[in-house]
């Protein structure tokens, strides 16, 4: 049952990820954003299969909720009708495809040849990513990074307010 679900979610993730990047029917950024939402939701499904329940919820709330709403707002703020008229140049497509295929080849080779050796010594997984142990680790061992992160969010907020003032100087 879990394996069937894994293959379903993995196929959905990769298919929707492909549709974000290279949708053959539509060049509209809104379509890409919607497929990105689907990708993120199916990734949350994969997180659930990995027993990372809290992160699956956070993924849906933060990414599919907050970040994508921000994206859609900006898409609708900008008038991007021009995008559909431009065509992708063949040279960029070929060279980019070759570069990405090379990167994938390197990663895949590493995974296929090194991961069996890596995972041979592992015991059976019994980790549960529920809120309690996650929160305990976050507020004891990782307290300082957590506080720094809150400062980072404050900096981002101030930066956005500064950037969206009418006369940028």
């Amino acid at each position: 049952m879990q394996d069937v679900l894994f293959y379903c979610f993995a196929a959905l993730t990769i298919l929707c990820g492909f549709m974000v990047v290279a949708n053959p029917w539509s060049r509209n950024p809104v379509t890409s954003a919607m497929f990105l939402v689907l990708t993120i939701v199916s990734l949350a499904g994969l997180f659930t299969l990995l027993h990372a329940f809290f992160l699956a919820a956070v993924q849906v709330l933060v990414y599919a909720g907050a970040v994508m709403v921000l994206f859609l707002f900006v898409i609708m703020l900008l008038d991007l009708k021009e995008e559909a008229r431009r065509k992708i140049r063949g040279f960029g497509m070929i060279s980019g495809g070759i570069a990405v295929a090379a990167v994938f080849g390197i990663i895949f080779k590493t995974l296929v040849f090194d991961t069996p050796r890596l995972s041979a010594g592992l015991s059976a997984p019994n980790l549960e990513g529920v809120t309690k142990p996650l929160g305990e680790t976050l507020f004891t061992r990782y307290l300082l990074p957590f506080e720094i992160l809150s400062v980072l969010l404050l900096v981002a907020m101030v930066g956005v307010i500064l950037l969206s003032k009418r006369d940028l100087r």
Partner: protein
Amino acid sequence: MTAGLEHYLVVSAILFCLGLLGVILRRNLLIIYMSLELMLNAANLAFVALSRFNNNLDGQIMVFFIITVAAAEVAVGLALIVALYRKRQTAHVEDLTLMKL
């Protein structure tokens, strides 16, 4: 075949390469941004898978941090794109070849 560590890592690698392809291929700033999010999510998946199969919670904490940083990054980046669009009326990288506003 049961889904082991390498299955998740392969999905993560494919997703990362799709994001990279988007950054290289697409010329729209917003879609480049979405591809960046795709790459970050691929890294998240690898972190969660390794955390699960190593019985170590640190990877999930790292994913938590990555999600937060990504949210901040998206906010700042989209504000920059909007500011740029106001000045130059375009969100296309081929029209943005000057460093001067």
